[in-house]
């Protein structure tokens, strides 16, 4: 049977993804038909993805990911908790000012391992979305995250963060309450936390408000999640002076999981169920938590100092520049 070739005319990151998918397809076809194992669904999914890559321009691929990442029915932090952490104990408050519903934090057991879990919660219904400010955290949200992270550190619990926010809350109260300092300090706390840390961008990784919860030993992204320095709409308004150019901005920003994996800014892409994570919360949660579990097991084998050194070096290495030759 003639094998499909990688689609031409696509940017390199999608080419790379297509090649990876083709390899996996070949692997699956070579596998013996074991009893009780059915690969046909995965094969079908890969074929669909390849077809979608083949038929779309770069900007359409990126824009489609933005839409899926923002999908209202996409699983959120509380959905992952519901499926994977039966004994979850939510903790509240930053001990300074208030309790921010845009950030959920607490303790629980994942695959037999006690962890602390912290994540953005956008909300599904309009009422919940309003109550949680659409997942846009205020300083008290980041301070709650820091407090629970420090609590976890004290008791030797690994910390898992789930990232899903349009960005930090843009409001007068948030600014006056020290939004910038809260984000900076959250980044600092997570960069020196002595326990293993894994961050998963499960939906929208919006700028500094996302990064505040996304500094970790391992950073994963769901296949259709996006992670960006600015929203495509914001970028389009500033650079194209037209928010309608958002799809083009989405492409230019290289915000998809495939792009960011290629840029070396994330460690792994977690595949989603066919059509997107919103189609099957349980399956998505299982995939995410399995990867988190594997990563934590690996991280726990490292000594504390080694883990901290590697985390710090990873962030200190980030950036692309050239060196001018001396005159």
């Amino acid at each position: 049977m003639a094998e499909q070739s990688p689609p031409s005319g696509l940017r390199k990151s999608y080419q790379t993804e297509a090649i990876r998918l083709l390899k996996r397809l070949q692997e699956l076809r070579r596998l013996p038909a074991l009893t009780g194992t059915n690969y046909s669904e995965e094969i079908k999914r890969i074929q669909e993805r390849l077809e979608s890559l083949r038929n779309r321009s770069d900007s359409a691929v990126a824009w489609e990911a933005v839409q899926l990442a923002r999908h209202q029915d996409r699983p959120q932090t509380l959905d992952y908790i519901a499926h994977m952490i039966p004994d979850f104990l939510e903790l509240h408050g930053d001990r300074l000012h208030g309790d921010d519903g845009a950030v959920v934090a607490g303790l629980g057991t994942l695959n037999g391992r006690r962890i602390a879990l912290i994540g953005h919660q956008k909300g599904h219904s309009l009422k919940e979305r309003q109550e949680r400010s659409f997942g846009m955290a205020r300083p008290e949200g980041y301070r709650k995250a820091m407090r629970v992270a420090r609590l976890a550190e004290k008791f030797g619990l690994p910390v898992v963060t789930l990232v899903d926010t349009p960005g930090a809350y843009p409001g007068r109260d948030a600014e006056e309450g020290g939004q910038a300092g809260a984000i900076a300090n959250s980044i600092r706390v997570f960069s020196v936390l002595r326990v293993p840390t894994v961050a998963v961008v499960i939906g929208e990784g919006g700028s500094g408000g996302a990064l505040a919860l996304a500094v970790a030993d391992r950073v994963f992204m769901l296949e259709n999640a996006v992670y960006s320095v600015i929203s495509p709409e914001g970028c389009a308004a500033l650079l194209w002076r037209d928010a309608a150019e958002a799809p083009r901005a989405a492409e230019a920003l290289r915000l998809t999981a495939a792009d960011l994996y290629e840029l070396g800014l994330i460690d792994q892409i977690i595949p989603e169920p066919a059509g997107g994570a919103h189609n099957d919360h349980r399956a998505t949660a299982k995939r995410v938590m399995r990867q988190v579990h594997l990563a934590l097991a690996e991280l726990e084998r490292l000594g504390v100092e080694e883990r901290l050194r590697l985390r710090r070096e990873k962030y200190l290495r980030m950036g692309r520049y050239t060196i001018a030759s001396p005159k």
Partner: protein
Amino acid sequence: MARYVTVQVTRKEPPTGAAPAEHCKKCQLPLSKEGLEQSWQVCPHCGYHYPLRAALRLALLADSGSVTFIGEELRPTDPLEFFDLRPYTERLAEAQLETGLTEALVAARCSIAGRPVALGVMDFGFMGGSMGSVVGERFHRLARLAVEEAMPLVVVASSGGARMQEGLLSLMQMAKTVAAAEIVSEAGLPYIAILTHPTTGGVFASFATVADLILAEPGAVMQFAGTRVIEQTTREKLPPDFGSSEKQLVHGQIDLVVDRRELKARLTQCLDLLVGGRVADAGGGEAGG
């Protein structure tokens, strides 16, 4: 594909640091170019702080003849092949030509009142002082140098935020600079941030706010989110002095508001009180008087 070999540049007035018109835009009193230069671009009548270019900021703070540039060989590149209405490479070339700088952060080893200091100065004129990979790496090298030579780290911020054209790489400079500042902190060395107009977005929410002491110039605006975004999201009209140094001081976000003409003296005092080092000078003094 070979992209944008020709670089077309239209010369414009430098976006900041240019002498204002003959009258102060705040108090309307007459201003001379020479008078402004003598007072470090501060209106001698009303104290309004005009933007100060990086070179002048170095001259203001560093002892004369003490500056050695650090990481000057680091140059921005175009990792995303970013193209909006114009290619990133063209915007960079224009910024370099207009400012005479290679990036938005100038890093230097220098002395301030005789004390060796690792000093970083941002220039808003270079693409709005936005933070890309080179800004992050120069900050990192400056922090390492501070630790290697046991010097304080002092950084003057002025930034519109992240460098969009470097995508997530620019967001990661927030994590990088915070990690670099932490190295200085772990070595027990002081890190002082001086926030000048404007300090916003990713710079405000990273290295600018993890310093031991945060100083700001009068009237400087510090915000994480932009005014337009805040007003659109919350439908609340912001007061005209929102985010200003004076307001940030009231809200407990900064330590001091310092007039530029006293900045070197105040900075020196901060360092003296934190780590000593000029005990002999302070000795007799007026302590007993």
